[in-house]
Structure formats: C-alpha cells, structure tokens
C-alpha cells in the first residue's frame, strides 16, 4: 500500500500515520518537516512553497513506490504541502510501516532524501528583517546542458 498527495491544506501527522500499519508490521517510522523560525541566523516569518503541481504528484507517487519496494513491500504514505506556511507548520510528512525497524527507518529516510533531490518544489523564505528569497536547492540528476 502506498499513498501520496500534494496539498495546500494543513497536514495532520496523525492522519498520515493512520494510513500505514498492518498486522505483520512491527515498526512504524515517521518524519515531518516543519517551518523553522530562523535560517542561518536570520529570523524567518514563514515559507512559501511553489510546486509544479502535476509533475510533483507523479514524482512523489514514484518515490513512495520505490520506498515501499525497498521496505520489502511495506506501507508508505507521504504528503507535501504547497502555498504559504507559518513557522511551526508541517511542510512534509512521511509514514512507513514494515515488519522490522531497519526497513521502516530506511524507507522513511529514502522518501525525504528523494523529495529533496527530485520533487519539483521550490521554497521562498520570508524574513522578518528583509525581503523574501528563493532558497538554493538541488539540481535534479537528469540535467540539460
């Protein structure tokens, strides 16, 4: 079982956790990314996430499918939020259940690392003391010259 979504709604970690788990699974791993109140010493007032919506949905689905396979057929759920988020709000949440803990941790970690590498999403940090800025990101591996 895999589930993924790109949303502009508030993310509830409990809802994401509730999507995984089955009688043969002994381990549940979860990760959430949260908007911080500072970045490299600059006070932050919020974060604006822009996405290439349709491709982001397809790419996130591919990532959770790969993660489920790595977790030996474990259950994987992931959701990424777009739009303007306040400090403390959840931007991404990932839940994995698997028979054993190593698989669950590895799959959850895989999903967040792949999101950072390949999900077509960008973020613009809003500061208390200066203008907003697009943050430096990772160039996806498939690269035109």
């Amino acid at each position, binding site marked *: 079982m895999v589930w993924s979504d790109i949303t502009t709604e508030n993310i509830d970690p409990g809802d994401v956790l509730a999507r995984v788990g089955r009688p043969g699974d002994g381990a549940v791993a979860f990760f959430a990314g949260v908007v911080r109140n500072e970045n490299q010493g600059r006070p932050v007032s919020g974060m604006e996430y822009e*996405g290439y919506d349709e*491709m982001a949905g397809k790419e996130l689905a591919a990532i959770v499918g790969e993660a489920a396979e790595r977790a030996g057929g474990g259950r994987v759920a992931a959701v990424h939020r777009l739009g303007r988020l306040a400090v403390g709000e959840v*931007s991404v949440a990932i839940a994995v259940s698997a028979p054993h803990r190593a698989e669950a941790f590895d799959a959850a970690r895989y999903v967040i690392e792949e999101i*950072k590498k390949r999900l077509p999403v960008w973020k613009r940090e809003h500061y208390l003391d200066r203008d907003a800025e697009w943050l430096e990101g990772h160039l996806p*591996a498939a690269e*035109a010259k």
Partner: protein
Amino acid sequence: MDVTVLLFAAHRELAGGKANTVVTLPERSTVDGLLAELRARGGGWASLPRRAAVAVNRSYANGDTVLSEGDEVALIPPVAGG
C-alpha cells in the same frame, strides 16, 4: 512546431514573471535547442541559469531529448522541497 515552456520560482522572475510561454521551433528540435533559443531572446531570458534540469511532459529529460509538437517543457530550477 509549438511547445509550451513552463517557468517556476526564480526562473519565472528572471523571465519577467511569465509562468508559461509558447515557443515555435524547427521540427525535431532538442531540449538544448530550445534552451539556446530562449537564451537568445536576451533580457531576463539570457540569464536563465546555465545549469537547469528540464522535464518534458512531466518527466525529467536530457538535453538531447527530441521535442514534439505540443510538448510541455518545464525548466526546473534546483529543487528545494521538504
């Protein structure tokens, strides 16, 4: 042939705020050919980053990917999700 070019985030601002634009290209143009064409427009387009990932029809593609009429070509700035 015509392809639709999508721009996001910092790229969009470089190109004067346009989110997408239709570009007419010779048949069998490649992704690299499209990028050269865009940069040749000058202005903000000239400063489109040399390093850019490209997605054709919502899948990552290479510079030598051949384009077809109606393709949706997205220039993908370095991604920063999560």
